[in-house]
């Protein structure tokens, strides 16, 4: 019998492990450094703020999308929930005059949408793609119904601070996104809930037989995702000072692309917060640079798709 050379005692350090966790971030740092040198006006305070603002919405929702994909599911209804959160908040604020009530209503509505998604997928066993495809349509419809078909302007000044106020010269949405990254990172790495998510995505049967509450975990993930998306939508509405029922079209795919770029496996069971952050930042940076260079928006689409494809290909080659 061969002698196992297993390390006991404190967890040992391994380069391969470190690269799996932080490799994508290193790629981003290199990309960032390269661009700072080559692209004029890139490394300016104003541009950095603009870049961060542009990825803040995607960044917040990517945190929960990470959990959703890691548990082996899919969710394309987030784009409608983002719009709905903003619209509902705007409508409630306009009618009741209370900003707190509006924000609360928006987030609660998002959580309810997520709850519905989770229950249908986890308890009724319906395919996640189809379920969220349906809710995406339904919630989008609700957006138009609630808003009466057009944008809902919010006249309350206190509402604007959420999206436009700053702390230490950095706008609130950026702080909120950073907080999300930290909070969800801790949840994924340091809680049983986070580890269970990965186990469920890796092998649902095994997780079930190991006593993990699979259905309950999935419902919580979707509910959190709904709440997070709605909250991001409220922040977005605050930035635009109005709730727009047709905002964020195609947003779901942006979020999923960022996650996949960051190493989250669509089959489930694999995913890290640092990878997701990297994915979000890389996508945002590329877009930012293209805008700086005045590249036609149409080419930006091509570029985004191309990066995603290249990343996934690279990942496959790494596995050979």
């Amino acid at each position, binding site marked *: *019998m061969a002698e196992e050379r297993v390390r006991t*005692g404190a967890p040992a350090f391994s380069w391969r492990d470190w690269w799996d966790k932080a490799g994508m971030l290193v790629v981003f740092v290199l990309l960032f450094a390269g661009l700072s040198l080559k692209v004029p006006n890139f490394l300016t305070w104003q541009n950095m703020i603009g870049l961060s603002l542009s990825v803040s919405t995607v960044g917040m929702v990517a945190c929960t999308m990470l959990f959703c994909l890691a548990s082996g599911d899919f969710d394309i209804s987030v784009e409608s929930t983002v719009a709905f959160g903003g619209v509902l908040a705007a409508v409630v604020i306009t009618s009741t005059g209370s900003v707190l009530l509006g924000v609360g209503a928006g987030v609660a509505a998002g959580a309810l949408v997520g709850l519905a998604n989770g229950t249908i997928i986890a308890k009724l066993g319906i395919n996640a793609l189809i379920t969220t495809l349906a809710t995406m349509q339904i919630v989008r419809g609700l957006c138009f119904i609630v808003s009466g078909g057009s944008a809902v302007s919010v006249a309350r000044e206190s509402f604007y601070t959420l999206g436009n106020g700053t702390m230490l010269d950095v706008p609130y949405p950026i702080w909120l996104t950073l907080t999300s990254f930290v909070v969800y990172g801790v949840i994924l790495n340091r809680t049983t809930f986070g580890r269970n998510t990965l186990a469920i995505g890796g*092998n649902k*049967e095994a997780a079930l037989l190991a006593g993990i509450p699979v259905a309950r975990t999935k419902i919580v993930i979707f509910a959190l995702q709904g709440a997070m998306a709605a909250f991001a939508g409220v922040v977005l509405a605050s930035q635009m000072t109005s709730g727009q029922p047709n905002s964020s079209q195609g947003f779901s795919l942006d979020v999923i692309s960022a996650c996949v770029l960051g190493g989250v496996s669509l089959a489930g*069971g694999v995913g890290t917060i640092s990878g997701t952050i990297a994915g979000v930042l890389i996508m945002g940076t590329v877009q930012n640079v293209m805008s700086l260079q005045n590249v036609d928006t149409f080419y930006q689409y091509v570029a985004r798709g191309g990066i995603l494809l290249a990343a996934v290909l690279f990942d496959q080659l790494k596995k050979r």
Partner: protein
Amino acid sequence: MGTAFVLWPRFVYNTVLLVLPRHREMDDMHLRFAHISKMFPGVHALDAVSFGVEQGSVHAVVGENGAGKSTLLKILCGVYRPDAGSIELAGIEQRFHAPLDAFKAGIAVIHQELNLVPEMSVAENMFLGHMPSRLGWLDRRAMQGAARVQLAALEEEISPQTKVGALPIAQRQMLEIAKALMRNASVLAFDEPTSSLSAREVAKLFSIIRRLREQGKAILYVSHRMEEIFDLCDAVTVLRDGRHVETFSSTQGLTRETIVNRMVGRDITDIFHYSPRQTGGPALELEQVTGPGLSAPVSLRVAQGEILGVFGLVGAGRTELLKLAYGAARKRSGTVRVAGRPVSITRPGHAIRAGVMLCPEDRKKEGIVPVRSVLENINLSARRLGSFLGCVINERWEWRNASAHVRQLRVKTPSLRQLAMNLSGGNQQKVVLARWLSEEVKVILLDEPTRGIDVGAKSEIYSIMYDLAASGAGVVMVSSDLPEVLGVADRIVVMRQGAVAGELSRAEATQEACLHLALPRQSMVN
């Protein structure tokens, strides 16, 4: 001057030798592995393995889990490329860049997981990759005709139009053999072919293999089952830890002990090493339990310290019974009592809290989480015990827990961070077992715990079972391996067609008695 004069015949002789065409060494081995080496991250799967397989012989390849048998077969069929060494066919070195090259060279490997497309027909599967066509249109008639001829040669009455998914495993295997013969394979390799076959099907398979041997094929036979090897094979090669240990060119006079000794590097005389132990009060009691898979209410008792063997044929309902007891399937009626107290178990979580654990039958589908590490797999359920407030992970506790069990169960892994899917089957099974040993076990339900595991590891698992029982747990072991059940269990329950057929104590249990209870009443006993 004189010396040179004497030496000139030598010069002539050497010159003539140089000029004459070189006479090639005739290798009587049709297939030869020459110094094959293969490395995977952190693991030396194969280390300069060399041996030869004769034409017209059945050559067994045996070894413990992790010895390198599967890797060798994968190199043979071109899925992996060796890091060093080569394969020689009829003396000529082969370089396979893809499975297609091996395919064309006449090598056919029949894997445990058969390479068939269930949704396509028998004929289509046989011609996969080289379907006959006329002017670009698929020639179905030619396909079906040829398929029928080939199947008839193997004495199989399957219509070429049947969907493969509808065929039982034994027939699918025959189909794979037909596929290989269709393209005149000269080398056939079988990987654990009999694990899902009935006795009659095994006999049929063996007669076909013997016929192939007479036709001059070089046949490789990878298996754990000693009886089969002695029954069927002419030569045996033993691998251990990726190295070639010994090749016996004849099975005459070869004993099981010798092979086992070469496989593990030491002598194992009695793998069961049973010794009776004290039993206590009831650990688990099932009373009139009914549910999916059971045709009649089942009642079962296991005492603390007792090992209950549950024997039966495929389809007897043993796995279903365990799943009902564990809460993985919905019970329709009946009560479950743990340590005398009735418990309500509707989810595996309830069972675990009551101290009842289940080690499932199919470790790939229900056991390990392939993309997560060994560390995570072992702590999958028990992490809540070491965590803070049941929520926050205690990494040090998890690490210590996993290391202790890896050491105790002798799991072969380069590190705890190794992904579970990179371990060999037997080690994966040990990881699943370790998951449950991390908990406080009152009752453990083991479903085929030693399936696909080598002799050395089997013995270790039995030791663990005895230790568990000795510490007061009730152990239920479902097994299709009759010698194992007879060797390990204190009491045996035999199931037949979804109900309990009978109970036997260790003293009264014999092979005949068990089989008699297990066989369905209406069948004709062969």
